[in-house]
């Protein structure tokens, strides 16, 4: 099958970007979107055109690297997938497909479709951890966790830090990401000792890095490949308020 790929080209962080349209041929229906980009790049290199830079790694939906905005949607037209799990069978043969990098002030473009999501790392460094005690591990039965809490915590921990929430939000807010991290740890006893400090530090860092605030449009929830819900934002807000009152 053949497609027209209208893609954002930008030489580096300082250069001015623009769209270019390329024709890609010989794409199998079962190819993933990233494999289609591999095929296009192979064809471009053979024509002497510089290949399109795009981020990817695990190609099975767990690393969160493949941050593409496809036809106006984060990770493209399928639901609850990352771009590597998006397949060409979702596009009509011959279609023109528009591909952009994440658009957010906090995620500057490095080249073409690759953005710097280092801001997420900085938020994690501000509080997305628990105290690691050394020495012999406790008996697991000393720390009882209800099945429901464990499941809820796991739902939040499913966040892969891809940044689709930020890219989708009209405020460029990272609330869903921060909420997933705070929530997954707040629900477990291991995360309680630093719960207040964590909520304060991660929210402060998020604000400092230029992410917007949440106005409950739920756009993030719609585009999250791991279906993290805004219930976790409510939990983050409660953790944050508690933390502020206990200061």
């Amino acid at each position: 099958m053949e497609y027209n790929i209208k893609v954002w080209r930008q030489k580096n962080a300082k250069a001015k970007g623009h769209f270019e349209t390329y024709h890609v041929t010989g794409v199998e229906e079962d190819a993933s979107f990233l494999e289609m980009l591999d095929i296009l790049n192979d064809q471009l290199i053979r024509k002497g055109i510089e290949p399109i830079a795009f981020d990817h790694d695990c190609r099975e939906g767990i690393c969160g690297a493949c941050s593409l905005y496809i036809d106006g949607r984060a990770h493209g037209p399928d639901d609850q997938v990352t771009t590597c799990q998006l397949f060409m069978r979702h596009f009509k043969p011959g279609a023109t497909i528009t591909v952009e990098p994440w658009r957010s002030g906090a995620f500057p473009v490095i080249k073409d479709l690759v953005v710097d999501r280092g801001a997420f790392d900085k938020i994690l460094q501000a509080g997305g951890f628990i105290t690691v005690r050394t020495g012999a591990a406790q008996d697991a039965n000393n720390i009882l966790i209800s099945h429901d809490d464990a499941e809820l915590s796991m739902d939040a921990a499913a966040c892969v830090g891809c940044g689709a929430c930020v890219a989708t939000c009209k405020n460029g807010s990272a609330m869903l990401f921060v909420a997933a991290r705070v929530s997954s740890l707040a629900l477990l006893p291991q995360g309680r000792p630093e719960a207040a400090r964590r909520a304060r530090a991660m929210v402060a860092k998020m604000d400092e890095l230029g992410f917007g605030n949440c106005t409950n449009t739920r756009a993030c929830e719609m585009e999250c490949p791991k279906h993290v819900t805004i219930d976790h934002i409510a939990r983050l807000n409660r953790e944050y308020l508690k933390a502020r009152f206990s200061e």
Partner: protein
Amino acid sequence: MLDLVIINGQAKGIIARNLVTGEIERFGAHAVVLATGGYGNTYFLSTNAMNSNGSAAMQAYRKGAFFANPCFAQIHPTCIPVHGDQQCKLTLMSESLRNDGRIWVPKKMEDVMKLRKHEIKASQIPEEDRDYYLERRYPAFGNLVPRDVASRAAKERCDAGYGVNETGLAVFLDFADAIKRLGHQRVEERYGNLFQMYEKITSSSPWEEPMMIYPAIHYTMGGLWVDYDLQTTIPGLYAIGEANFSDHGGNRLGASALMQGLADGYFILPYTIGDYLSHKFAEPKTDINAPEFAEAEKAVKERIAKIFAVKGTETVDSIHKKLGHIMWEYVGMARNEEGLKKGIEEIGKLREEFWKTVRVPGTNEEFNQELEKALRLVDFFDIGELMARDALNRKESCGGHFREEMQTEEGETKRDDENFMYVAAWEYKGEGVAPELHKEDLKYENIKIATRNYKD
């Protein structure tokens, strides 16, 4: 990481390329720890992340660190089959699926042909015409036999012509019985996310039709040789996790890679590296202006310039795919002397082809993914060759390494403990020169070694 810097015989730092700016940077230290993973991507198609590579371990090997048991690679039985020649990555379906799923192919060749032409569906094949080959061959363990055994059994059926998809390289993993026995809800709780993932990739629902699976490269047990302190043969150079060879022997068991990562990183290295560092307190901070750093940096820059200078016509991926085919064909699930010799020869030819025909666009001084891939491929050639050499030397079937000449009448692995009960540690002797084999004998004091038996 593009080179290891050694000063007075001790590891003192590394040379790395900044992926964003392309700058070649020097990092000095009192010791170097490699936590750089395995080399499964030598095969191009694997379950590893696309950026996983063996380059750091290879630089250490070229600087004198022994590389142990390179031929031991694990082939995982439950991966989604290859769909065509455009694929870049194989997806692993969790091993846990084998707890409740039953693996089978049709008994009748006519059913196989109809499946391939999409004339019938798997669910239409009656129970008596299905060959649950693992349950048949290994009644005691059934679908829960170890990975190497399950993988070889799938290959055996597909080689015999019973593969169930168009390429003939797939078997069924069926949940119909589990859904009947446990009910929809219990199966959903256990495997719901995996079923969803499978359906997204293949557009076929495991709730209605069995999954199709086929073995794929998943993990490499071999790696840099380390002692009990996780130190390589170069003082001050440590290797942890999949990058070393230490924990899994010839065959890794499920979940133990995570275990090794935690054990090496949390519980072993923090206690052992202190011994080495305690002797270094009096030493000043490593000077990155030392001539050894300048020399290593110069060699790296020359290597990069040499790659750009080829200015050929072929893309890096297209050559890497060819390497993958050679590896899978001759150094894959079943190996033999003739094939391994042929493999070594083919790798050599392909390496020459690379240096004549590769085309890497752009420059070093920018974000350049093609250059990254080319630098890694240069190392994959050497790893692939080393794997084949080691496999050729090990004339026994052991763990993930299966030599066709060494099998029982029933097609099971046959070890040769008398001649091969050792770790094969290879020492680099220079470009184009055969590496030297060092044998570390395995001594068992508290257990009696036995042969695996999954039949009864």
